[in-house]
């Protein structure tokens, strides 16, 4: 057992490989989260234009089709299309973060939309009757309240995203899982590399969870007044 851990992590300085893989996993995840939140917010607002107008608009239709397609196809398929067809093998980081960013945006959009719609209708009516415009009410009254609804579900999405980056190896991008694949193919033992990799992912998600929990607590401070 000890010997296989030695072979999997120490021998031939393999821990450096894991560090490189971890770096790729984190970079892809962070960029994807940024893309996902930015694009997801835009998509959610596009979908909400239908509510504002009372009937479906061009923007809401575009957003709906995008979300429908992205959620209806497997991420792995999207990744392979991005790598082999669209970007033709250019740069692993670009392929990974773009695929996961575009993918995550669809889910984030629905989370944000749900969060906004969960805010009581009266808030919007109240804002409007005070003379604020739709945009002002949205920005200053609805969104600050919606963020509290959104955060737990959003944190969930980030966790899923981090773990799903483990399919990057399918297109030869060297992330954490790919490193363990590589080590397994060299030492012919699966236990140690897989357990080690699982532990690293766990710690990564743990750190994120703790951060999100702290943020949630901070946001909830105003509730208790």
């Amino acid at each position, binding site marked *: 057992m000890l010997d296989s851990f030695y072979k999997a992590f120490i021998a031939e300085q393999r821990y450096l490989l894991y560090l490189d893989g971890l770096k790729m996993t984190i970079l892809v995840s962070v960029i994807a989260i940024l893309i996902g939140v930015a694009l997801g917010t835009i998509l959610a607002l596009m979908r909400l234009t239908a509510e504002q107008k009372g009937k479906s608009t061009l923007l809401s239709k575009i957003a709906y089709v995008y979300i429908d397609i992205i959620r209806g196809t497997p991420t792995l398929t999207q990744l392979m299309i991005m790598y*082999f067809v669209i970007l*033709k*093998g*250019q740069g692993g980081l670009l392929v990974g973060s773009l695929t996961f960013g575009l993918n995550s945006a669809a889910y984030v959009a629905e989370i944000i939309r749900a969060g906004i719609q969960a805010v009581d209708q009266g808030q919007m009516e109240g804002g409007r009757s005070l003379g604020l415009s739709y945009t002002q009410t949205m920005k200053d009254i609805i969104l600050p309240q919606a963020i509290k609804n959104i955060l737990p579900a959003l944190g969930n999405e980030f966790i899923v995203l981090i773990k799903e980056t483990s399919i990057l*190896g*399918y*297109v*030869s991008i*060297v992330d954490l899982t*790919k490193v363990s*694949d*590589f080590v*397994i*193919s*060299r030492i*012919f*033992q*699966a236990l140690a590399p897989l357990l080690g990799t699982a532990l690293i992912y766990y710690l990564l998600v743990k750190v994120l969870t703790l951060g999100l929990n702290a943020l949630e607590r901070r946001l909830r401070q105003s509730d208790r007044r």
Partner: protein
Amino acid sequence: MKKFLVAALAGVMAASMLFTGCGKKEESKVPDKIIVGTNAEFPPFEYMDNQKKPDGFDIAMIKEIGKRMNKKVEIQNMEFKSLIGAMESGSINSIIAGMTKTKEREQSVDFSDSYYTSNQAIILKKDSKITKLSQLSGKKIGVQEGTTGDIISSGEKFGEKNKTIVKKATVKRFKKGVDAVMDLKNGSIDAVVIDEKPAQEFVKNNSKKLKLVIDSAGAEYYCIALTKGNTAYKEEINKQIKAIKKDGTYDKLKAKYIDSVK
């Protein structure tokens, strides 16, 4: 009543442990069934036929061996890199997957006599000037993860002379050889290093854009991997390989599966 049940159960468990203990001592016997692992992503040796069943030279070979030994053959398709682990855990007792005999693998499994000699091929774009493996040093190379092409390209020691052939190359590792070939067509790598026969299949299907170079520095010997330490089984398999080669069946299979690829 309950106590009696517990005691009976304990007795049965103890007895079964005892019996399995006995079984372990007589490991060196031919198993009742050939449970063979393969990775059906390696034409023409193993691939999924139109009915989505594993087929190919290796599969035909092991079925022939099974027929002659009067044993059932069960084929399990899995990832190439999982094969040896599956054997160690005992869920399969043979591997036929175009697997080369290497010192590292020999620590975990036993190998039969070689049933096929394979060369490494370099797949290149038509306009490439590369003619041998050593010229790939410093280049970008696509490979199928864990295969000989991967080991050579990664600059690991290889072959009878145990020497590094390719130095300091950037290696992109794919799950499937065909993915590496697609990457080559897309122009993001300089070459693909993979066994000769699958290489011919790939190049045949892309003959306008790609060409193939064979380098004997990469020659290697395909063997059937067998449960470590089971000499009786190994001897039986070797006997059958010899017989199949002698009576012409081998040439027939080779003609059917391998030489038909041109």
